[in-house]
């Protein structure tokens, strides 16, 4: 994910003189990457696990601790505001959770407002799973009359002016016409009642997770105090989103105040909650995973450079305090990786392990290679095609109707299904080379994919070879000689037979199936003129296709 920062703003938040090279180097070691610098704007790519770095403030915070300017756990002072949020019944199956915070003394110039919006969008699209799990709203605090009610309402009874509009709209109208309604409407559309956030004067704050009110949810340069709410379907995600955005705003000097949320079952929660989570890790485990020999002090220092609180504990352990804006810490290994990053990836020396194993190619590869060598020996040129193709090539032009694995979301019809045979693919190849010198002798060794319900993934994947010859004059007899040479050199002398067949791919009387030990293993012949026409081929073609089950190897 790309975060756009103003360089002077970022450097002033970092608060220490850095050259752009030093900044780039620090970010690189912190998992982020400078993508582009243009004028005063730097584009920084942030990995999706570091949602807390999706803002200029978050990046500055990470760099500050990494460069030992402000290491250790960042403390956010939270004052109780005493303000109430009341959650009404009926939201359990729709969007049960809400967490809120108040920020006083927010700096808001035009650039900053734009950046807050970006952070909000970025957080809700990835972490919030396109607003399904969590969505964020910012409001002008001073316009609100607390307590705020989080409840439900019938869609047609919902009426307010949505952000960016001047006229009032009702719920169904917003979903049908407002761009955000069209984009995210599916999240609530099926419910009889929709979630609604309104204040004690009855003013609507927003229709979560679709859109804010234009009156209360429009932040301007005049706005000094903010009310932030996050609603969603997953409590942890909602809390984390609130923590990330609240902490980001506080980085610019705003004072955080908490609110009290009362659920219908009388559960009460005070949000935001920045008291860190704890995890204990053993020094031995750290060194075992990283291959380093770090003592407790160095581990603690590395953790502090990554913004953790850390202190040595009894029994060669380290007690770690995890900042509340981090949402990617599921397991001690996540902390251990941060120790490696805090220690410095550039300081870790590669070491070759002594793991002793013997290598080998797969028997199927060996069989494929053998067939490729034999084909080259018969003066065929190897070609490689995509596995994906179209039903037009596989079935329509071939006059076939064989089952084919079909994708639901192709970007183009030409690559929408998996090939179930190589012959059509090579005919397609030949049709694109009418201008090249003749004779043309081409082959491909590759897998074909045949639907088969009995298999785990409902397909059978078969290695195959297809050889194709086209020239002003072609000859089935010499093709037969070549197939014979191929099969005999696979150790199948006296184990194969050709049996005249009436396959519609070929001219009647010029085609046969190939049977290996009595099993149908392929076919050959001279391609019928209709099919040549369908492919737009002007020269006659003989071709064969042979399946290469691994049982052919080593016989």
């Amino acid at each position: 994910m790309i975060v756009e920062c103003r360089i002077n703003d970022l450097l002033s938040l970092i608060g220490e003189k850095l050259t752009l090279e030093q900044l780039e180097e620090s970010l690189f070691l912190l998992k982020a990457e400078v993508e582009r610098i243009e004028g005063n704007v730097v584009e920084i790519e942030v990995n999706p696990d570091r949602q807390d770095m999706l803002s200029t403030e978050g990046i500055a915070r990470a760099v500050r601790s990494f460069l030992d300017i402000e290491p250790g756990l960042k403390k956010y002072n939270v004052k109780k505001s005493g303000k109430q949020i009341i959650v009404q019944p009926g939201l359990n199956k729709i969007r049960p959770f809400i967490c809120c915070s108040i920020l006083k003394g927010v700096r808001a110039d035009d650039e900053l407002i734009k950046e807050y919006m970006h952070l909000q969008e970025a957080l809700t699209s990835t972490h919030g799973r396109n607003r399904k799990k969590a969505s964020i709203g910012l409001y002008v605090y001073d316009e609100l009359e607390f307590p705020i009610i989080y409840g439900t309402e019938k869609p047609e009874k919902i009426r307010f002016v949505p952000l960016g509009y001047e006229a009032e709209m009702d719920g169904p109208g917003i979903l049908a016409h407002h761009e955000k309604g069209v984009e995210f409407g599916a999240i609530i559309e099926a419910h009889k009642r929709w979630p609604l956030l309104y204040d004690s004067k009855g003013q609507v704050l927003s229709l979560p997770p679709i859109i804010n009110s234009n009156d209360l949810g429009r932040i301007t340069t005049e706005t000094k105090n903010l009310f932030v709410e996050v609603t969603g379907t997953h409590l942890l995600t909602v809390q984390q989103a609130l923590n990330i955005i609240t902490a980001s705003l506080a980085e610019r000097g705003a004072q955080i105040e908490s609110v009290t949320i009362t659920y219908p079952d009388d559960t009460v929660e005070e949000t935001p909650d920045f008291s860190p989570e704890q995890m204990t890790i053993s020094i031995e485990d750290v060194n075992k995973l990283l291959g380093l020999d770090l003592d407790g002090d160095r581990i603690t220092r590395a953790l502090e450079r990554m913004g953790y609180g850390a202190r040595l504990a009894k029994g060669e352990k380290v007690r770690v305090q995890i900042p509340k804006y981090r949402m990617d810490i599921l397991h001690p290994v996540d902390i251990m990786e941060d120790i490696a990053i805090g220690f410095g990836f550039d300081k870790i020396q590669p070491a070759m392990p002594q793991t002793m194993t013997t290598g080998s190619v797969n028997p199927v590869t060996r069989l494929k290679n053998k067939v490729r060598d034999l084909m080259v020996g018969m003066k065929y040129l190897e070609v490689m095609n995509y596995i994906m193709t179209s039903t037009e090539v596989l079935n329509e032009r071939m006059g076939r109707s064989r089952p084919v694995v079909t994708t639901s979301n192709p970007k183009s019809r030409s690559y929408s299904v998996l090939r179930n045979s190589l012959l059509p693919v090579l005919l397609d190849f030949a049709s694109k080379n009418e201008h090249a010198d003749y004779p043309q002798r081409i082959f491909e060794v590759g897998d074909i994919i045949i639907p088969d319900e009995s298999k785990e993934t409902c397909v059978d994947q078969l290695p195959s070879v297809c050889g194709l010859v086209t020239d002003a004059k072609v000859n089935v007899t010499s093709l037969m000689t070549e197939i014979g040479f191929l099969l005999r050199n696979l150790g199948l002398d006296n184990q194969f037979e050709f049996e005249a067949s009436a396959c519609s791919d070929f001219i009647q009387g010029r085609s046969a199936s190939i049977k290996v030990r009595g099993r149908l293993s392929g076919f050959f012949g001279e391609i019928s003129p209709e099919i040549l026409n369908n492919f737009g081929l002007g020269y006659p073609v003989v071709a064969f296709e042979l399946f290469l089950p691994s049982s052919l190897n080593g016989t």
Partner: protein
Amino acid sequence: MSEQLTTGEKTILKGLVELRRKSSADEIAKITEQNTERVISILNALAVRGIVKLETREKISYALTDEGKEYARDGLPEIRLVKALEESGRTAPFEVVLTKSGISPRTKGIAMAWAVRNEWAHASKQGDTTILSTIGDYSKSPVAAALESIAKGNGASIQNDDPALQQLLERKLVSEVITKIIEAELSRNYLVHAEDILADLTEDIGNLTPEMLSSGAWKGRKFRPYNVGIQPEYVNYGKKHPYAEFNDWLREIMVGLGFTEWFGPYVETEFWGHDALFVPQDHVARDVQDQFRVAAPYDHGHIIDKKYYEAVKNVHENGGGTGSKGWDWPYHKEVATRLCLRPHTTPVSMRFLYQHRESPQKMFIVDRNFRSESLSVTHAHEFDQCEGIIMDKGLTLRNLLGYLTAICKAVGIEKLKFKPGQFPFTEPSVETFGKHDKLGWIELGGSGIFRPEVTQPLGIRDSVLAWGIGAGRLYMAAMGINDIRDLFSQDLNWLRRSYFVR
């Protein structure tokens, strides 16, 4: 020699071979002692069969006109005039000199005019009489020389812009004659047979035959030499695809490093594709914008091992006793059995681990993957990945970097930079950048140590190092290819010219 040639054709070809260059029909006629018309007719027959290449060009030569012939015989009138003047004591009346020179009165004007223009003589009036006197040397007249050489048949040596020639043309003493010259040379494909042609026609041995060997008839005779200095012709024999050869080379390297090759299906269940890799079921990588879903004829596959399925389910929902929090989110069988085209080769690593749970193990795969992309210069819906895992007791992050260094060195990239990365199934995760001669720092691929949430459901407690390199990207860098579509080019001419050399 594949062509049947008549004696006449052989004779002409022999002449052509002996001349060893592009030669005119006249030259061939001369060396073969044939007449030119016959040579031309035989050359035409050979050209039709592609044995010789003919080229017709126009040649300009010069012939004397009647007046020119007269002057060539008697000398140019102006020269005769000045000569007579000299013999008359260098200054004399015009009429006297004219009579002495013996030139016809018809040409007296011409003689006088050119003698003056060439500044050989000066004319002045004394009353009614014209007096001539010599002032220059006439003996080195280029015009006379040109006339003489054309008369002798050496006109070819004169440049067409020679002023002397121009004067001769202007004075209509010579005229242009345009003749067509037919020139022949052996066609490129036939050059290699040139020696055979000679062999057929000389006493020296061309083809050594079984009869000669058994009779000993070759003894004491000379072998006609071949012209072994020529460029061989271009042909289209069979060969392997350069990209396939590149992938073969990667396999060779992996086997050399002790890795065993493994395979897995292109059509995967999301269970293997994502769940087993601890990718949350609502992760964006599973979206239709990112990976291909299979719609028909079957859109869901089967779970083959209920016990493993349950273990994976638990890890997702609550960490499953691995020390992880899990995703704290309901896990659905409907998603697990959904069919997709595998978006990476990592499910193959999981299938390998499923069957090989005891250390040590090293496995690799070089094969195709699919992403829902539109085909363009930079993006393709199919790409090959070279991926491997190493499982052993006590393997560490430093070992991972060690292996990456060894693998990259083996493919010719010496200078590396490691950056912490992020993949849902590894922790720590590493991105590797390599210094390429021409392209600078390029991203080579991702790697990491499998998370406990990935290995522990299989009962694996040892570290598993995993890494992947974009085979196609590496090949493009090695071959200087900029358009990703060239990996699977359908241009036969391009393929016939392309090769992979290491």
